């Protein structure tokens, strides 16, 4: 293991040790702040409870990502093709990022119910902006010399889009996707907080109400691991797709 990895591990272990000690020393009630040992115990023992809820949340996130891609990829492409459309839509794009998502959540639950749909839409809305913008930037970042060269070869716009702009934009697209994947988790959980019957976010609320705070932390732990796994997966996908870097 590299030296920096050793240091990170050391820092993490130190923090956990201080946490564990403080809980014991100050006799903190476990429903105010559970000790790491409690959390670990719950995470392991309650796997059969956590797993199905984690599955639901994971499904919401993945579907949200696909839904977002379905809209953002064509949209970014259209905006690149037609600068007047880009100018017209830019303010809305920025607004979609500025609107606090948790304000939207209750409305979505009223319109779409307690089921999957509202969470999927929440996740999709939250990552819509980073993905659209990074793809658009990627398109625009194509170096002029290549564009001219394609003109010299007699390529029309669609050929340029398919053979030049799209591959050129892929690295930018993937950075946007990596950000999106970690943020989509937030959207799904907020959706669950506002109205759900299953999922890790829902579990967190119920557990908190029942004073099972170590279960809350266990759910958070599972969420972090899920986010991390998705980020790693996208990174892996990125290396396969962008093999030339």
């Amino acid at each position, binding site marked *: 293991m590299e030296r920096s990895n050793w240091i990170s591990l050391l820092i993490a272990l130190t923090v956990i040790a201080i946490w564990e000690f403080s809980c014991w020393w100050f006799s903190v009630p476990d429903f105010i702040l559970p000790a790491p040992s409690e959390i670990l115990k719950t995470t392991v023992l309650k796997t059969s409870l956590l797993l199905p809820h984690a599955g639901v949340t994971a499904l919401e996130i993945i579907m949200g990502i696909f839904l977002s891609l379905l809209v953002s990829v064509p949209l970014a492409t259209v905006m690149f093709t037609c600068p007047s459309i880009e100018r017209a839509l830019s303010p809305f794009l920025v607004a979609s990022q500025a609107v606090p998502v948790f304000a939207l959540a209750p409305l979505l639950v009223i319109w779409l119910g307690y089921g999957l749909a509202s969470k999927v839409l929440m996740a999709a809305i939250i990552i819509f902006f980073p993905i659209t913008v990074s793809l658009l930037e990627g398109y625009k970042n194509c170096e002029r*010399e*290549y564009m*001219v*060269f*394609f*003109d*010299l*070869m*007699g*390529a029309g716009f669609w*050929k340029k889009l398919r*053979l*030049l702009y799209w*591959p050129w934009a892929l690295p930018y697209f993937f950075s946007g996707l990596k950000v999106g994947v970690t943020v989509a988790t937030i959207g799904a959980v907020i959706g669950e907080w506002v109205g759900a019957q299953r999922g890790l976010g829902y579990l967190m609320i119920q557990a908190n109400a029942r004073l099972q705070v170590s279960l809350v932390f266990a759910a958070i732990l599972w969420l972090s691991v899920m986010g991390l796994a998705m980020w790693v997966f996208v990174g892996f996908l990125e290396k396969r797709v*962008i*093999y*030339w*870097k």
Partner: protein
Amino acid sequence: MLSVSGLTKRFEGLTVMEGFDLTVPRGGFTTLIGPSGCGKSTLFDVLTGVFPRDDGRMSWLGEAVPDLMSRAAYMQQKDLLLPWLSLIDNAMLPAKIAGADENDSQEKASALFSRLGLHDFENYIPRKVSGGMRQRCALVRTLMFEHELVLLDEPLSSLDAITRRSLQALLLLLQSEFNKTILMITHDIEEALLLSDELLVLTPIPMRVRERFVLEMPKLGRNSNPELLKIKEHVLEELEGDLNGTI
């Protein structure tokens, strides 16, 4: 032949060229050489139509053309190979965009790769091969254009002296084996004298042909030709004078 007359281009009040004339006989190899900043690259941009011109006419093989966009093959100082395509896919790009049959293009490109010594590297991506190999690939790509007219914009200036030597020999093939009509820009006088049938020395802005040398001696054995040595000295003096003049 390529015929250009009365080419005029102004940029924000600066006259880069005015009434510029140029002819390249069919199958000929004409080189332009001049001091930096004399507008050589602007000339190519205007010829191809990347920049609109203010005045002038062009014709190729007797037919009037608005510009050379999609009418000439192009090779530049930067290889502009797409990093995500293999060398052979890069080479086939002009043919693919023009809609040529893929199998035919593949065969043609493969043969050219062998001819230029790149046979073993067809499927490598540009990042994995040297600058010289990339430029050779660019040369193959130039040949994959269907056009007879070839524009070379300082094609070898990014390479080291030794690689440049080997590629110069290959540039000759364009004319001798593939019967292309070539217009080249370079700042390397030796290179110009080695390869061309005709050498045009340019003035600084506003650009004009200051002197024209017709080189009829055979291309083989040009390095040791004393007459060419004299021309080289002469041109160097002129260009140096231009340089001193602008300081």
